[in-house]
């Protein structure tokens, strides 16, 4: 978007939202219905409706009762993986976005290479390269550290582009106004551009955090015993994959729901200046 079309007067129009759901009660009732249906498929019940025989999946509840605590102990590892990786990714994203936007060719191109490399290769492969590859040349990282580093680098690269787009979406008039008041480029970035860019990109960044929180599961491939790893450890010897993995999946879902709740509240708070 060019600076001209981003004029101040058109900004509120650009943020116009879809109307909120006008049928919250019906929406929730149906939600409960569909959820009940999904639960039913795992109930183990057998129904015969005339000629129609319905068999549902029977879960081993005894196994779940015995192992769910073992699996759930991975939640803390998952949360701390996500926590450190979110911090790392945000810092990397901000630094590389600013680097990408500098007029200094050497720095901008370095940031460009970083973004291209880490967006262009699979996260799974990056995990192996950092954990096994670096160990081969003498840099031995434990699984947790390697996972945090890789998640930070990978998501930092994706979020860098989001940050850059957010910074560029702030109208150039804002920058000129700040300059005209005697602010330095650094002050302008910190006080005027970044606060507005962050408001613009909050939904996208939130989505990245949610995606990352689930991608922490890949750390189980490099020996980290977080949720998914423990689920496999519990399920494999007993041949109870379904039960173990569902326990882990429910945890991921719960974490995401909690995160979405806070994300939505944050977005609403940040929309203050648009109203």
């Amino acid at each position, binding site marked *: 978007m060019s600076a001209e079309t981003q004029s*101040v007067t058109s900004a509120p129009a650009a943020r116009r939202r879809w109307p909120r759901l006008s049928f919250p009660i019906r929406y929730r009732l149906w939600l409960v219905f569909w959820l009940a249906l999904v639960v039913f498929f795992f109930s183990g019940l057998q129904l015969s409706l005339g000629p129609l025989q319905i068999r549902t999946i029977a879960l081993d509840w005894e196994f779940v009762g015995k192992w769910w605590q073992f699996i759930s102990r991975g939640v803390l590892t998952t949360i701390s993986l996500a926590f450190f990786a979110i911090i790392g990714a945000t810092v990397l994203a901000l630094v590389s976005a600013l680097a990408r936007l500098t007029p200094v060719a050497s720095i901008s191109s370095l940031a460009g290479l970083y973004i291209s490399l880490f967006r262009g290769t699979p996260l799974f492969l990056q995990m192996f390269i950092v954990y096994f590859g670096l160990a081969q040349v003498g840099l031995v990282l434990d699984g947790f550290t390697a996972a945090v580093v890789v998640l930070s680098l990978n998501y930092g690269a994706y979020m860098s582009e989001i940050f850059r787009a957010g910074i560029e979406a702030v109208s150039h008039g804002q920058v000129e106004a700040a300059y*005209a*008041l005697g602010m330095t480029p650094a002050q302008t970035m910190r006080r005027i551009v970044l606060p507005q860019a962050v408001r613009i990109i909050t939904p996208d960044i939130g989505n990245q955090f949610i995606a990352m929180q689930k991608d922490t599961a890949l750390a189980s491939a490099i020996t980290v015993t977080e949720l998914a790893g423990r689920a496999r450890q519990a399920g494999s010897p007993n041949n109870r994959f379904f039960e173990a993995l569902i326990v882990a999946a429910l945890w991921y879902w719960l974490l995401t729901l909690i995160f979405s709740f806070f994300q939505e509240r944050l977005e609403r708070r940040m929309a203050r200046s648009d109203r």
Partner: protein
Amino acid sequence: MTFGDKETAGLAALAGWRQGDNLTAPIDRSLSPCHLVTLSPCHAMTEPILSVKNLHKRYGNLEVLRGVDLELAPREVVCLIGRSGSGKSTLLRCINFLEEPTEGEVTVAGFTVPAGEKTREHRRQILQLRQRVGMVFQQFNLFMHMTVLENLIEAPILVRGLKREMAVALAEDLLQRLGLSDKRDVYPSRLSGGQQQRVAIARAMAMEPMVLLFDEPTSALDPELTGEVLQTMRYLAREGTTMIVVTHEMSFARDVADRVIFMDQGVFVEQGPPSQVIGAPKDARLRSFLDLGLGRG
């Protein structure tokens, strides 16, 4: 670092004088009221507060400004008129170095910044200069994530290093004078265009600039909203603010300006009191411009 009482601080703001600033740079010393006392009033009136010498701006082969010289006396109001593309806005943007002039120099109250060097010192000088030159934009450019008050105190605190209470007092005084007190804690998106532009004027005044530049301040407004902005500008002019106004509002130029300058193709073609330039234009291009312009206004 002291202000007089709130009242005089506001008056100083409107008169364009800076007072009780943290005076660090050499230029600041010459601006202090004490220094002015040593000058005869007559001298103070004739010493230009802004002077532009031989200003050129080229974009590749295109020469937008072709040697502009301009001197402004304190409290003088100058209106720049001319067709779009004549270089009016470029001149304004070169005065505070939002556009880097190719050649020439700008002096504000004895502080000179020459064009063209790309040094650290040059950038520092530009920052100094901008503190003394306020600018009001066509598109207002209020900081959308800040309330009206926050818009006003941001630069005084960050750039001038004022204490927060002092900046707030100055801002509240300005808002009251411009009739915007009730908008103090409102976000710009909830204001009309006219109100936004008045807040933008207040924001520029909060830095207590020596000169205020207006870049077509009413061109982005609906016709019924231009009135309140022009009224605010008349008020500032009456209070003795030195200003350069790029405008298409001929009635404003005729009533308020001490001097009207007609620009064409990057040079001043004709200038003088409004009665002469608008009332009895000599240049043929100016005459045809006025025929078009007055038809609109």
